[in-house]
C-alpha cells in the first residue's frame, strides 16, 4: 500500500473510532494523520535527523564531528545545549523550518560525504533538571524523520531514555539509530561488550532491528560510518515514509489494543420473544382464531336455522374488553389501533419494557465485554433508547398482518349444500303435511312419485335429517380445523414480522458490530501491509 492510501485508510479508521474508542487513542491517531500530511507537504526532499540523548553523552560533539565544523557549543558543566540547534547541508525550504520550529540554524555546503538535503537537529538533553529541554525534545522527536540517540558507556542503559523515548518508538526500528559515543574510553573488549549489551537491551524492548553505531567524537572513530549511514538515508529519502508508516503502525496498535475482534452479540431470539410478548402476539393469534371461527360459522350457517343462533351472544357484549373488541373490529394490531387505544396500550407497553430491557442487555453484554469503556457506554445507551422505541416500531410493523381470515370458498359450498339439505327436508315435511291433510280430508290420493317402495317426501325427510346433522358436524369440525390452521399461519406470520421488525429496529446496535468489524479490518490491513 502506498503512503497516501495508508493515510486514507487511517483516516477512515479514525472516523470509525471517534466516539467509540478511548479519546486519547483516537487523538493520537489523528495527530499521526495530521503530522504525516504536514510532513509530506513540507519539503519531502529533505531528511531531518535529530540527535537526542542524555546530558553529557556528547550530542554536540557528535554533531560537530559530523558537520566537520564546531557549530555547537561543547562544555563540561551539565547541561550544555539549551536550545535545539539545526544545521543543514545546502538550502532548506522555509516551510520545513517553520514546521520544525527551529530558531538557530547554520548551513554547511554539500560535500561527497554529506549530500544536499540532510538536516540535522542537535537537541538539548532529555534528562537534566531543565524540564523545558524535555519539552523541546519531545516535540522534535515527533516530527523528525530519523531519531539518532547519542549514548555513552556510562549512560547507555539509562531508564529515562529507554522508557521515555526508545520504548514508545518500538515500531520505528527502521528510523532509529543508537550511537554509542565516547568509545575511546573503553578498550576493544569493553567496546564489544558494551555494544552487545546495548543491542540486547534494545532487543528487549522490540528495537532489535535498530541500527547501533559505535563512535568517538573525540578521536573521530566511527564518524565516517555514521556519515555514510546518514548520506545513504538522505539520498534514498525513504526515512520520511518509513517514519510515517511506523507512526501509523503505532497508532493502529494502540487503536487495536482494547478491541476484541471476536466478541459478538448474544441471543437475539430473546429480544424477539420480549417484543412478541410486548405486542401481545398470543392475544392477537387468539383473536385471529376467534374471528375465523365466528366468520366461518356465520358464513356456513344455513339461512333458516341460523336465525336462532346469535341470541345468547348478544347478552355478553357489554362486558367484552374494549381492547379485544376493537382488535376484532380492525383486525390489525398496529399503529392505527394503537392510536385508538392510546392510554390502554401505551401504558401496557411501558410495563412490558422490563422484559425487553433485560433481553437487550443480555444481548449486548457479550459484545461489549470486548470493547473499550467509551464504546461500551455508547452501545448501552443505544440499547436504552431502543428499549423505548422498539415496541412501537414492532407494532407498526405488525399492522400489515391481517388477523381476519379471507372468505373461504368451501364456506359457500357448505352453505349452499347445507341449504339444499335443509330445503329438501322442509320440502319433504311440507309435502307429507299436504299428503296428510289430503288423507284427513278423505280426498283421493294424489299420485306420489316413489323411489323404489318409498315415496319421495319420506325419502327427503328420512335422508335429510341425518344429512343435516352430518353437515353440522362436518362444518363445526372444518371450521375448528380451519381456525387452528389460520391461527398457526397468523402466528407464524406475526412472528416473522416481529423478527423482521426486530432486525430493522436493532440496526443501530448491529451497526456497531459492523463498525467494529470494519474498523478491525481497516486497521489490520494497515498493520499487515507494514
Amino acid at each position, binding site marked *: 500500500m502506498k503512503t497516501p492510501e495508508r493515510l486514507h485508510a487511517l483516516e477512515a479508521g479514525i472516523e470509525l473510532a471517534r466516539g467509540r474508542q478511548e479519546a486519547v487513542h483516537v487523538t493520537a491517531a489523528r495527530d499521526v494523520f495530521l503530522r504525516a500530511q504536514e510532513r509530506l507537504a513540507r519539503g519531502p526532499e529533505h531528511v531531518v535527523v535529530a540527535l537526542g540523548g*542524555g*546530558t*553529557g553523552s556528547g550530542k554536540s560533539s557528535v554533531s560537530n564531528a559530523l558537520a566537520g565544523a564546531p557549530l555547537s557549543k561543547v562544555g*563540561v*558543566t*551539565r*547541561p550544555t545545549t539549551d536550545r535545539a540547534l539545526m544545521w543543514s547541508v545546502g538550502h532548506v525550504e522555509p516551510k520545513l523550518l517553520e514546521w520544525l520550529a527551529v530558531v538557530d540554524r547554520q548551513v554547511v555546503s554539500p560535500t561527497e560525504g554529506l549530500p544536499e538535503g540532510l538536516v540535522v537537529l542537535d537537541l538539548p538533553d532529555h*534528562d*537534566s*533538571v531543565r*524540564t523545558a529541554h524535555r519539552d523541546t525534545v519531545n516535540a522534535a522527536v515527533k516530527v523528525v524523520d530519523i531519531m539518532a540517540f547519542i549514548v555513552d*558507556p*556510562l*549512560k547507555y*542503559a*539509562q*531508564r*529515562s531514555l*529507554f*522508557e521515555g523515548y526508545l520504548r514508545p518508538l518500538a515500531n520505528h526500528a527502521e528510523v532509529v539509530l543508537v550511537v554509542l559515543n565516547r568509545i575511546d574510553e573503553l*578498550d576493544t*573488549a*569493553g567496546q564489544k*561488550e*558494551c555494544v552487545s*549489551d546495548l543491542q540486547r*537491551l534494545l532487543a*528487549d524492548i522490540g528495537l532489535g532491528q535498530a541500527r547501533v553505531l559505535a563512535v568517538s567524537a573525540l578521536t573521530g572513530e566511527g564518524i565516517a560510518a555514521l556519515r555514510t549511514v546518514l548520506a545513504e538515508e538522505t539520498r534514498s529519502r525513504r526515512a520520511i515514509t518509513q517514519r510515517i508508516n511506523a507512526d501509523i503502525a503505532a497508532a493502529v496498535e494502540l487503536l487495536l489494543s482494547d478491541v476484541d475482534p471476536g466478541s459478538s452479540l448474544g441471543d437475539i431470539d430473546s429480544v424477539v420473544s420480549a417484543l412478541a410478548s*410486548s405486542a*401481545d*402476539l*398470543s*392475544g*392477537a*393469534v*387468539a*383473536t385471529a382464531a376467534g374471528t375465523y371461527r365466528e366468520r366461518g360459522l356465520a358464513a356456513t350457517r344455513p339461512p333458516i336455522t341460523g336465525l336462532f343462533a346469535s341470541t*345468547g351472544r348478544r*347478552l*355478553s357484549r357489554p*362486558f*367484552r*374488553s*374494549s*381492547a*379485544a373488541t376493537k382488535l376484532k373490529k380492525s383486525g390489525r394490531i398496529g399503529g392505527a389501533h394503537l392510536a385508538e387505544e392510546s*392510554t*390502554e396500550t401505551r*401504558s*401496557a*407497553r*411501558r*410495563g*412490558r419494557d*422490563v*422484559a425487553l*430491557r*433485560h433481553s437487550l*442487555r443480555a444481548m449486548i453484554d457479550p459484545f461489549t465485554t470486548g470493547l473499550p*469503556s467509551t464504546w461500551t457506554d455508547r452501545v448501552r445507551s443505544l440499547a436504552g433508547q431502543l428499549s423505548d422505541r422498539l415496541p412501537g416500531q414492532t407494532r407498526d410493523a405488525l399492522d400489515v398482518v391481517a388477523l381476519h381470515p379471507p372468505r373461504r370458498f368451501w364456506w359457500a359450498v357448505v352453505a349452499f349444500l347445507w341449504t339444499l339439505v335443509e330445503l329438501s327436508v322442509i320440502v319433504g315435511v311440507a309435502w307429507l303435511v299436504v299428503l296428510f291433510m289430503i288423507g284427513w280430508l278423505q280426498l283421493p290420493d294424489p299420485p306420489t312419485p316413489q323411489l323404489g317402495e318409498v315415496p319421495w317426501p319420506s325419502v327427503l325427510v328420512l335422508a335429510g335429517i341425518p344429512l343435516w346433522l352430518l353437515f353440522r358436524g362436518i362444518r363445526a369440525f372444518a371450521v375448528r380445523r380451519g381456525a387452528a390452521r389460520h391461527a398457526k399461519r397468523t402466528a407464524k406470520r406475526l412472528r416473522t414480522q416481529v423478527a423482521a421488525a426486530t432486525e430493522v429496529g436493532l440496526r443501530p446496535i448491529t451497526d456497531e458490530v459492523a463498525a467494529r468489524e470494519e474498523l478491525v479490518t481497516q486497521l489490520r490491513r494497515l498493520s499487515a501491509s507494514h
Partner: protein
Amino acid sequence: MMNSTPASAHSPLADALRDLAEVIADADFALAGDRRESLLALRDRLIDDVRNHATRARDVDAPLLVVLGGVTGAGKSTVTNTIAGRPLVATGVIRPTTMQPTLLCHPADLAWFTGPRMLASLSRQVVTPEEMSAAPTATGSLRVVPLDDLEPGLALLDAPDIDSVSTANRDLADLLLDAADVWLWFTTVGKYADIESMRYLARAERRGTALVVVLTQVRDSDRDAVIDDFALKLAGIEVQPAALVVIPRVDEEWLRRDDGAVPESTPPQRRSFWRRREPAAEPGQAARDGAETVVAEAAQPVTPQSDSMLPQTAMTELQDWLDRLADPGERQLRRSQTLRGAVSALSGEVMPIIDGTASELDTAKEMLSTIDRTYDEAVDSFARSIDDGLPLRGEILGRWTDYVGSSRMLELTGRATSQAKRWITDLLQGSGSAGERRLEREVRVEVADTVTDTMIRLADLAATDTLDEWGLLGGGRALAEGDLRGHEVDLPARCLDAVRAWQDTVVDLVADKGVERKTKARWMSTAINALATGAIVVALASTGGLTGAEAGIATAAGAANQALLVTVLGERTVRWLVSESRKDLVRRFSELLIPERRRLAGAVAAASPDPELPSRMQAALDRAVA
C-alpha cells in the same frame, strides 16, 4: 560495642512506630481503583520504612548503616572494593553492573544483619571475602560480607543503581536507601544534573536523611567549574548535603600529577575507618584477579590500581568522611538526625495512605447509596409495571375475559333469576365446572409466572445498573467487573412463593368484602375463587381505568373483569381492593430484594476498609510523631 547479641532498650517511640506500621498494614485499597497499585506499593514501602525507624529507635547501639546509592556507572562498586581492599564486587562496562547488593561490616556486627532486626525483608546470605568470587549471584538477595579490616559499628552497603533500565534494581535500591542511616550518594561528572538523581537527593533532603554526596570521575582541570555548577544545582533544589566529596578521575594525567603530591598530604598514622594495608601486597593481588589495567605502567609503582579498585590516594576526601562517621559520637548524631528527620517526614508520607483510605470509605458509601438507589428504582419500576398492566398472555386473558363476559358468569353476579342461580350453583359444584376451574388455575399460574419473571428481571437489571454505576465511580471498577451480576440462586423460588402467598391474600380480601356485602348473595362464597381471580387479573392487567382517577370507572367499564367486580362488590370496594392488593405485592417485592441488596452490600463491605481506619491511622501517626 562488641555485643554479638543485639541489645534492645525499651523505647516508646519504637512502640509507637511499630503500632503505626501495624495500622498501616490494615489498608488494602480494594476500592481505590486505578490508584490501588501505587497506593499498595506506597503502603508496603511505608511499612518497611516505619519498621526500619522502629528498629533504629529501639536498637540505639546498632551499627550505622551507610548505603552507597546513586546512578549507574558512578563507581559505587569500585569504591566498595577499594574500601574492602580487594575486588569483592564485580565492576565493568556493562550497565548496570551491580544487580545484587553487598554489605560490608565487622564480624562483630554480623548478628545485626543476619537477625530479624535490620533489612529483614531481604533474603540474606553471609559470604566470607574468600568465597565471594565463587558465591552464586542471587538477584534480590543481600550478600553480607564480614571483614576484619573494618571498624565495628559501621556497615557499608553497595546498593544497585536507580537510573538504569533495570526496574528491579531501582526497587531494591529504594528499599535499601530507606533503611539507611546515612546516604553516600554517588553521581558522576557525566550525570550530576540528571533529573533522576536530583529527585533522590530532594527526597533525602525532605526526609532529613544524613547525606554525603560523592562526585566521581572529576578531572582536575574541570574540578572547580563542575563543583561550582553542581553546588548551584543542589542549591536550586534546596538540597544541603553534609558534604560534597570529590573522587578524581584516575587517568594517566592524574597519576602523573598525583605522583608526589597526594600521598604526602595524607597523614599516615591517622586512625582510619578502614585499616591501611601494606601497599606492596596489592598490585600483585589485583593482577592475579586478571583485571585489566588501564594505566598499567604509570600506576604500578604508586598505588594498587586495577579496574575494580581505585588508588587509595584518590579517595582521601571520602576516607576523611568515613573516618569521621566511625566516631561513636558522630554515629549517634547521624543516626538520630536521620531518625528525627524520618519521623517528622512521616506525617507527609502517611497522608496519602490516610487520604486514600478515607476516599475509599467515601467510595464505599457512594456504592452503598447506589445500591439503595437502583433497588429502590427497581421497586418503583415494579409498581409502575403493575399500574401499567403486566404483560399477561393475551390468549389466556382472552379466554378468561370471554368466560367472565359469558352469560354463565353473568348469572353469578346475581342479576339472574333465582332459578338461574340454582342452576349455576349446581354447575359450579358439579362436574360441569371442571373446565372453568382449570381456566381459573391457568390464569393464576400465568399470573404467577409473569409476575415472577418480571421480578427476577427487575432484580437482574437492578444489579446490572448498580454495577454499571460502580464502574463509573473509579474506585468501584474492580468490584463492578467482578462476578456480581444476576441474582441469588433462590430468588426465583422465593418470588414464586411470594406471588402465591399474595394470591391467597387477595382471595382473603375478596372473601372479607364478600361477606360484608351479604345482601348480595350467600351463595357467592362458591364464586369467591372466581371473583378473586378476577380481582387478581384486574390488579395486574388493569388498563389504568381504576388508578387513573381522571379517567374514572366509566371509561374502563368495557373491561369485563372490572365491570363484573364493580357489579358484585361496588366501585369503592373494587378501588380499595385493587390498590390494597397492588400495595401488598409491591411490599412483597421490596422484601424479596432485601437479600439481593445484602449480597451487593456485603461485597462492598468486604472490600471496604474499617470505617475507623483513617482515624486509627491518624492517632497512631500522632503518637509516633509526638
